[in-house]
Every structure is written in structure tokens, then in C-alpha cells.
């Protein structure tokens, strides 16, 4: 089949979504299909212009390229999933969350915009067009639940392996730190981990890895770290209602326990409390307690890590299964 993957590209931002599209493209090619990615530029910085970008997507015609039919369009993200196609399958990575669950979230711009309500309503109405797709999949149960809750759209959760899944392993030696690899963003809540570190009884170390969404947020974290006297930048994965979260799966592949929070969304679909990690209340104090516990009980952490790896294997995540379902 000739397949196009439709997604969006926010200039200068690269993360899980881009890896996701590339992973899908590789899997489709590996399965013998001709596949390519169409990334529509998307700039959410000026909320009033978001409907223009939705309309631009609706006006794209990808049914045929150079005289050859496009057999299937697999659309991943808002507003690219609005591109019409007679054989469209949508695999929703996430909707424009500022119009839904993050409407009241203090770091989101939409509700602070004078026309935010109208833009929100435009997005919500347009998202109803998801129903025109031949099938709607969601990146996780969490996203499927949101689609059902906010839009009344039924979708099937479809998990996939993280990028480079085969490269993860558990080193023989355990380092003296927790690891928190993620984009630096308010929704990933590095700040909560920093506040928790200030409350730990043990001399817990966390290594953070990632790029900041905005230089301001990066600066804020550094200032906060300096203020709290944290010696190293560090670990774990306690985001706000994450869509999916490769980090959880990567930790499981690496046989590492995961510390997450009760409101972290996607990670909760994979982390079992007291089995493959710890699920804490989303407060600095509760998080500090979890950090202290695993810092002190290394064997328990290792046990959770092994159990996480076993759970990953049991889930049978594979790109071939993803391809089978998307092309069914």
C-alpha cells in the first residue's frame, strides 16, 4: 500500500511525537509498504490563528500524489488529523489539550486569550470530524478516555514500542542516582521533583536529561535548583496527565523501577504500584517519601525494575502489531 502519515511539526520542537511518526514509517516500510510522513507546520503560540491552521488542513488534498493514489492516510496529531481522505485512519497521539483537560491549567495560554473560548469551541467542534475516519485509535487508554469523555468518540488504545526499544538494557552496576529523562516543560513537572528533593531525608540524587521547551522554563528550574540546594539534576517520571510516556516504557525495558504520580496519566497504564514502581500522590512530600524509600531500599528498586521488564515483555508491544491494526 501507499501510505501517508500525517502529523504536525512545531518548528524547533522535537520529541516523542516525531519519534513516533518515524517509528511508524519504519515499521510500515519494514512491512513492505511505501510510506512517507507529511508534517504540517503548526504554531499554537497565537491561539487566535489556530482555526486558520485547522482550515488549512481541511483544504489539503492528499488523495493522490503525482497521479498515484494514496491508499491510506494515517493521521496522528491535531490539526493534521483533520486532513480529509477517503481511507483515513486516525491514531490520536493527543488532541490540543488546552481546549480540553488543560483548559484551566495555569501554564496554558488558551484560556488567557481574549478569544480563547471561541478557539476552544472551534477546536472541539472540529474534533467531532474525527468520526469521519474509518477507524480511530488512541495512543493510550488515557487518550481513549479523553476522547470518549470530551468528544464522545470511541477509540481503541493501541500501544507501540518506544524508539530504539532494542537498545535498552540494565547495566550490571547501579548508579547512585535516579534518572529523569524528559523534555523540560511545566507539564512534565521537573519542578515538583526538585521540591521533593528538598524534602527527602536521604541524600537523594536525581539526574535530569532533556531540552527545555522554553529558555525561560529552563532558567526557572535552574534558579529553583539553586534555591533548594540540590546537588545534581536528576530522575523519575511524574508528569501531569501524560498522554503516553515513552520514558515509562524505556525504564521498563531497562529494568528500572518507575516513580510516578497518581495524576500522571499514561505512565499509570504501565506502572503497578508496589510491583513495578511507586505511584505517589502529586505532592512534594509524597514524592520525597517515595524517593527516600527507593533510595534506601535498592533491592526493592531492583525487584520492581525486573518486574517492569517482565511486564513489558508480557504486553507484547510491537510495531508489526501496530501496522496490522492500522491497516486492517
Amino acid at each position: 500500500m501507499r501510505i501517508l502519515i500525517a502529523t504536525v511539526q512545531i518548528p524547533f520542537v522535537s520529541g516523542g511525537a516525531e519519534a513516533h511518526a518515524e517509528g511508524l514509517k519504519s515499521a510500515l516500510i519494514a512491512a513492505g509498504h511505501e510510506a512517507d510522513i507529511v508534517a504540517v507546520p503548526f504554531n499554537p503560540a497565537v491561539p487566535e490563528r489556530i482555526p486558520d491552521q485547522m482550515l488549512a488542513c481541511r483544504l489539503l488534498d492528499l488523495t493522490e500524489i503525482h497521479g498515484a493514489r494514496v491508499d491510506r492516510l494515517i493521521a496522528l496529531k491535531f490539526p493534521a488529523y483533520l486532513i480529509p481522505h477517503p481511507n483515513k485512519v486516525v491514531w490520536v497521539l493527543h488532541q490540543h489539550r488546552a481546549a480540553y483537560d488543560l483548559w484551566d491549567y495555569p501554564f496554558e495560554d488558551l484560556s488567557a486569550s481574549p478569544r480563547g473560548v471561541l478557539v476552544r469551541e472551534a477546536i472541539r467542534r472540529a474534533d467531532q470530524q474525527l468520526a469521519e475516519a474509518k477507524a480511530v485509535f488512541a495512543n493510550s487508554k488515557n487518550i481513549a478516555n479523553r476522547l470518549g469523555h470530551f468528544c464522545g468518540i470511541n477509540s481503541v488504545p493501541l500501544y507501540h514500542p518506544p524508539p530504539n526499544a532494542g537498545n535498552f538494557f540494565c547495566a550490571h552496576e547501579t548508579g547512585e542516582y535516579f534518572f529523569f529523562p524528559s523534555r523540560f516543560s511545566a507539564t512534565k513537572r521537573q519542578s515538583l521533583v526538585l521540591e521533593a528533593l528538598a524534602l527527602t531525608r536521604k541524600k537523594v540524587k536525581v539526574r535530569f536529561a532533556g531540552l527545555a521547551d522554553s529558555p525561560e522554563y529552563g532558567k526557572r528550574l535552574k534558579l529553583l535548583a539553586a534555591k533548594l540546594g540540590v546537588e545534581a539534576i536528576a530522575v523519575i517520571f511524574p508528569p501531569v496527565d501524560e498522554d503516553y510516556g515513552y520514558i515509562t516504557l524505556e525504564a521498563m525495558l531497562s529494568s528500572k523501577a518507575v516513580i510516578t504520580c497518581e495524576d500522571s496519566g499514561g505512565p499509570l497504564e504501565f506502572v503497578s504500584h508496589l510491583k513495578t514502581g511507586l505511584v505517589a500522590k502529586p505532592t512534594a512530600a509524597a514524592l520525597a517519601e517515595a524517593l527516600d524509600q527507593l533510595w534506601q531500599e535498592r533491592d526493592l528498586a531492583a525487584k520492581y525494575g525486573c518486574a517492569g521488564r517482565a511486564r513489558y515483555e508480557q504486553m507484547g508491544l510491537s510495531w508489526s502489531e501496530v501496522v496490522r491494526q492500522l491497516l486492517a
Partner: protein
Amino acid sequence: MKINLFSPLPPTRSEIARQTTNLLPLLARKAEVIVWSSKKQWHPEAGTHATVRHYEAAHPPWREISDADVTFYQTGNDPRYHHAIWRISQQHPGIVILHDLKLQHFFSGLVFHELGLNRRQYLELVERHHGAKGRVLAESHLRGLLGTEELAEQCPLTGGVTENALAVVVHSAAAYHSIPEETPVAYLPLGVGAAPRTQETPPGSSRSSTEVYQISVFGFLGPNRRLPVLLRTLSNFPQRDRFRLDIYGTIEGEDKIHQLVARLGLNDLVTMHGFVAEDRLDEALRRTDLVVNMRYPSMGEASASQLHLWQYALPALVTRTAWYETLPENTVAFVRPEHEAEDIQAHLTSFLDEPEKYRELGRNGRRHVSENHSIEDYANSLLEVAERVPEFQTRWIARDLARRAGTAMNAWSDSSTIDAFLPRVAQEIAMLVAGNPSTSTGLAKSG
């Protein structure tokens, strides 16, 4: 339902402020109401039924404003009371309640009082709504060569407050038909608060033999309230000593009116009280036999003060124009705009001959208000309009997208390509805003 209501509040000297105060307890029965005030102080009564919040027009708290399901804007012609409301309404589309159709007083007032609209912006606004000819007239107005009323007749500039609205609420059939087709509009008869306690017959009936009758004029008294013609007519009226004229309210050009009263030798008959508090006005209306409530030209909407005076069962002389023209013949005494002096004289003569006939007009008027202008019905209708916000939003979003797409396509400067592409653009806009893929977007004016 959570409602934002941007409105002047007492002690602001405005009928709209009074109407808002009367509305609040009724709206609050069925909705959570936040009243937004650009003034830092307001009469405590306003806060009895609603949360009252102050806002700075330059830095509005958008997150809080966006938290409501619907936003109403009370708009009127006084730039002092409505400039901040207009500014917010231009940024955050909501439901505009129109209390005047001809809004030149408001817009040129923004320029003259330096309330956030400069001359260039004003002229651009006039040109957008009334073309190059309108701009020329507006330039004449700014130079002092053309009066506001005359300009308003040709360039009412209603679109300046309605162009960005989700929907418009009007209070007269004429206003309803004057709103452009693309804007949803609801016609609700203006509601007034509880009627004052009045005697079954007005005070004058018991003292008709005292030979002297009380005429009152009240409200904001601009040139269209016809004070000079009234004064001249009274001065020329042979039995003028049978009347006393009391004028309540702020008079535009007060000095000239004072001079005219003196020149006409009416000092013994005419008293100008200026703005008076509500209780004093109430007392004055109870002592009144006849009200002169003329407006020419009319600013085009239903008159809250007419409804107010009817509540006292008072007869009134009104100009046969605009909303007044639609009033039942048995509720008011009409004055033809082109025969003002003649008609006023005729009415004064007739009043002296048959005062009871005029009292009957007042009683009919009071009945008309109670049957057609209940504030309870008005509040309920506003809530029904609020329920329709999703429909209005759909229409607004579609219109806005069409406008933006049109602007983008204009740059192509190839009409045949644009014409070929337009149906597709229209279809996709319809798809986007439809919500449910199977629903259509057809919307019409509603009564």
C-alpha cells in the same frame, strides 16, 4: 450557567445601571452572575445577588472572564460609562445588548473625551461601516461643521458595537430589522423593574381645579430632547401660566438653555433641577401631570424612561418616530416631528380642556408596561438567549474563518481562481464548525 455581565452600576447616573440592578436578582435565580465594573466603587445593592468584580480595561483578567458560559455587554451612547465595556467586547465576543442604535455620540465621544479612540481610528471605523462618504461626513463632524445627531442619521455606526458580537439583543422591531443578516439578533421588549406604588388616579386628578399643572422633562437631555422648541412653544402659549415646567437631569449645553429661559421670560415657570437622586425623581413624578418625552432624532431604541414614566401612569408627549411611533395610540400623545410647536400647543390646549383624556393615556400606558415589559419576562428571555450561545459560537467561528479565508484569497487577485475555490472553502468551514458531521450550520434570525 455562569454569566458575565459588563454594565455600569449605580451610583452611575444611567438608566442602564438601574436596569442592571433590577435584573440581577432575577438572573441570579437561575445562574451564577458576575458583574464586571470598570469603576472601583458601586452601590452595595449590586453585590447582593451577584459577585461584582472590578476590571481594568487595559489589563482584563481573561482567564476569569473566559470561565463563564456567556458574556453580556450593556452598551449605550454615553462614552463615559461604556467605553471600557466596548473595549472588552471587541476582544472577547459576547452578546451585545443594544440600548441605542445610533451610536455617534458614543464613538465621537470616545475621540472628544480621549477615551481610547483617536481621530484616525474613529475615521477608519466610520469608513469601514459607512464608506468614503461617511468618512467625509465624520471629518466634518470632527471639525465642528456637522452635528452629532445629523451625522448619526446618516452614519449610525451601530456596526461599531455589533460587528464582533456573538449575538445582539435589541428592544424594538425597527432595531431588529436594522441589524445585518449575518448577525444573530434577538428582539426582547425592554423590561422595567417593579412599578412604584401609585394612587389609582394620578395626583393631578384631585386638583384639576387648582388650575396649574405640572409638566416634567427628565433624563439625559441632549439636543434631540427638543428643549428649545418646548420652551419657545410654552412661551408662546396663551395660557402658559396654567403650567409649571420642571426639568430633571443633566442638560447638554445647559448655559444656553438657561439663557433661553431668561430670554423667553420663563423664569417663573421653568425650574431646572439638574441630576437628582432616584427618590427625588420619584417624588417629582408623583407630583407630575404631564411629561414631555420627545426625541428627535431618536437614537433608535426603546426608551427606558418612557417605560419608567408609564409606571407612574403619566401621560406623555412623544415624537412620532422610531420606537415611539410603534406605541399604541391610546398610550401616548404624539407630536409630529415636522409640526412640533403646532402639536405641542394643540396638546396643551386639549389637556386644559380635557385633562381626564390624558390621564387615561397614562393609565393605558401603565397597563401596557405591565403586560409587555415585565422585567421577569425580560430576564427569562435573556437566559434563553444565553442558552443559545453554542449556536451563536458556531456562526461566529464560521464567519470569522470565512473572513480570514477571504482576506487571504484576496491577495491572489485572480477572481476566477477565487470563485472556483470558494465553494470548497465554504464547504470545509461548514464541516469544521458543524460539530457533528451530520448536522448542518443553517442559522437564522430569531425573535
